[in-house]
């Protein structure tokens, strides 16, 4: 049930963040993205918070989803504990890496 719930909550969060992300990245000028553009945006703390939350929810959603897809197979289902831990670790690693990246734009 936890996976199921995580999947829905993160989906609702994504609805907000992904929409913002898509619109600002692709439909609001400038259309060519470079370091400066990103840095300009990320200099406001609101954007930073939004991006971090976005990153977190998308990772949770992605890994919960992948976990669901994999454990739907009976053979994998029997190893679901291990798979769950693997997903959690991947989420943490990717989150740290992503957060570091967002931080990098402060330079």
């Amino acid at each position, binding site marked *: 049930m936890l996976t199921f719930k995580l999947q829905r909550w993160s989906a609702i969060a994504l*609805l907000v963040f992904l929409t913002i992300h*898509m619109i600002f990245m692709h439909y609001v000028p400038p259309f060519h993205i*470079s*370091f400066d553009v990103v840095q300009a945006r990320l200099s406001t703390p609101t954007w930073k918070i939004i991006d971090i939350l976005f990153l977190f929810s998308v990772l949770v959603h*992605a890994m919960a*989803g992948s976990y669901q*897809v994999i454990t739907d197979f009976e053979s994998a289902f029997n190893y679901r504990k291990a798979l769950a831990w693997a997903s959690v670790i991947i989420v943490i690693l990717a989150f740290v890496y992503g957060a570091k*990246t967002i931080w990098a734009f402060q330079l």
Partner: protein
Amino acid sequence: MYTSTGFISWLLRRISGLALVLYLFMHLWVIGAANSGVQVFNDRLNAVQTPLFKLFEVALLAAVVYHALDGIRLLLIHYFDLTEYRKSLFWAVIILSAIITIVGGGAILVIAFTGG
């Protein structure tokens, strides 16, 4: 295999979801170049903003739009007990996805080829 609108929606949702996961990690890697400095970042980013990649982005848009709309459909069904409307909601999602993909994708291409 037992097919129905529900099954098709599930299959598309799975495929789009997994494709998005794949993209997500690629995306993280691309952006992650920022950790190695401005130059590397701009190079990598330029590489993925060529017209070819714009086509790819349209496909991505289709996946995101379908997946998101279908996700909304599921959430609606979960929280408002709409199982009886599953078929009409499915077709609504398909049609809306098509419209948004065409309009949004068109915009991406127009922007890409006219340089914005």
